[in-house]
């Protein structure tokens, strides 16, 4: 198996509803990544794109083929990945495997979404399609409802008073907003830096106990990365970011995960695959872009990834252990809650952030000092798809 590096990354600004089409958004991110890699579109052997809901957002299916043609990657194989919010991470992971196998030497992987363009009603309906359509949606489940129920279950399981847990979750939100407010690519760039616990708890209730500020926004945006085999990567860049561990796991409906909830078992299996492959442990990770679609999701993720003990992640956030300068810097980009969550692009956006952090190219106020090892964590559905990847400096 060949070593595989990220040699270039690109990303649009993540935003609310905007006018660029999905193909245009993806093209913007992909051409940035290709140019940064000192490559031309003709050098790309295949294109892997995450896109969850393009059919509903624009009435556009099979956008991967149109995207390939749009950017000048003529006649290359182009594949679309649909794994709800983990779609782009699936694309990057598969691109890794194909390059590692030696079949392709240079592949572009990424994702695009216009979830915000759908508006709240249709976005809420279509996001609910990632719960079980037959055995869960009839009860009116929505995505916030899933994580709202996990919040109550978490409080009951670990015997944490709900009010205390809500305050800890507010600290997660405040940290995310702090970093996102100085990330120019973030949906909430320049916003929410003055958030307080009181403001989080007092905002509009979406699904008890989650308020608006416990939830990520609906977002439009795209991200893309270029992966190349080691021999090619060394010719293209002085700072190749190697993918040294990957993992992916799947699971059934939320109710079928009862033996582990509020732990997400698929995440434990996926991340353990990645750690084993990289020969690393959670304590070795300098920064992690994890799937904080809701504030409670950060706590659940950080525990399943092995950063903190079960039921203790809230304490860790309160002590600053999950921030820059702590045990592990979680979501210095602002994460899904502040950078934004264009679901089919989110995983590639996480890889974009890790690559920029390891190259020390982000704004000073959110740069993780001496970051050498980064990790991504992307969740699709209510635990149905989990992807983890570990990245290390190649210089």
């Amino acid at each position, binding site marked *: 198996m060949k070593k595989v590096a990220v040699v270039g990354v690109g990303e649009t600004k993540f935003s609310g509803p905007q006018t660029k089409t999905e193909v245009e958004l993806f093209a913007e991110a992909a051409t940035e990544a290709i140019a940064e890699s000192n490559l031309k579109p003709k050098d790309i052997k295949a294109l892997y794109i995450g896109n969850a809901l393009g059919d509903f957002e624009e009435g556009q299916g099979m956008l991967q083929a149109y995207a390939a043609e749009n950017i000048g990657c003529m006649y290359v194989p182009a594949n679309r990945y649909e794994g709800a919010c983990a779609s782009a991470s699936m694309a990057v992971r598969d691109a890794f495997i194909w390059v590692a196998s030696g079949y392709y030497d240079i592949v572009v992987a990424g994702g695009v979404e216009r979830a915000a363009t759908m508006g709240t009603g249709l976005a809420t309906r279509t996001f609910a399609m990632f719960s079980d359509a037959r055995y*869960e949606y009839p009860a009116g489940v*929505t995505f916030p409802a899933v994580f709202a129920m996990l919040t*109550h279950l978490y409080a009951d399981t670990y015997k944490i008073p709900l009010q205390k847990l809500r305050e800890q979750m507010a600290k997660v939100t405040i940290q995310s907003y702090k970093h996102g407010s100085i990330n120019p690519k973030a949906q909430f760039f320049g916003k929410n830096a003055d958030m307080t616990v009181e403001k989080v708890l007092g905002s509009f209730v979406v699904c008890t106990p989650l308020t608006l500020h416990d939830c990520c926004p609906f977002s439009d945006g795209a991200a893309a990365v270029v992966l190349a085999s080691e021999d090619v990567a060394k010719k293209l860049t002085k700072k190749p970011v190697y993918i040294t561990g990957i993992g992916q796991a799947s699971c059934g409906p939320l109710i079928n995960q009862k033996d582990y909830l509020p732990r997400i078992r698929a995440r434990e299996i996926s991340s353990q695959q990645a750690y084993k492959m990289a020969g690393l442990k959670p304590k070795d990770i300098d920064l992690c872009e994890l799937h904080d679609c809701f504030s409670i999701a950060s706590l659940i993720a950080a525990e399943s990834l092995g950063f903190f003990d079960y039921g203790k992640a809230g304490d860790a956030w309160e002590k600053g252990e999950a921030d820059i300068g702590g045990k592990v810097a979680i979501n210095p980009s602002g994460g899904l809650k502040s950078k934004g969550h264009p679901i089919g692009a989110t995983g590639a956006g996480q890889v974009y952030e890790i690559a920029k952090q390891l190259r020390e190219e982000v704004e000073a106020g959110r740069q993780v000092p001496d970051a050498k090892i980064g990790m991504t964590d992307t969740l699709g559905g209510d635990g149905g798809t989990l992807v983890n990847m570990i990245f290390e400096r190649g210089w």
Partner: protein
Amino acid sequence: MEQKLYFKDYNEALKQNKILGLKCRACGAITVPPKMACRQCTSPDMEVIEVKSNGKIRTFTTVFVGAEGRESEVPYIIVIVELEEGPWIMGNLEGVDPKTASMELIGKKVKMGNKVFPGDKYSAGEGARPLFSLVN
């Protein structure tokens, strides 16, 4: 291979306030809702049984933002109930004011009726869901 119990028959039973499940002949585990392989040992060798529909609430939420087409239903309470024989099932809770639903609901015993979601343009038809109420 034919699945032992399909959604259609499960749904028809639920509309009669009955929960059909699958009991594994290999390991004895009960699988609800229906699927091809046993939830515990993955054997397909299972028989259809009726599962007791009473249980206790494991978690809940009150939904204030509904999906397109279901805006008029809010606020409503979703519960996950652990049935007496072990499986978890998702449904709604009636008889409790959604605006006052609190952590005290967790652990409460419930009995089951049903309510049919008539379906929308995406859902390939209707689907019943459990409609629980507290046991006094």
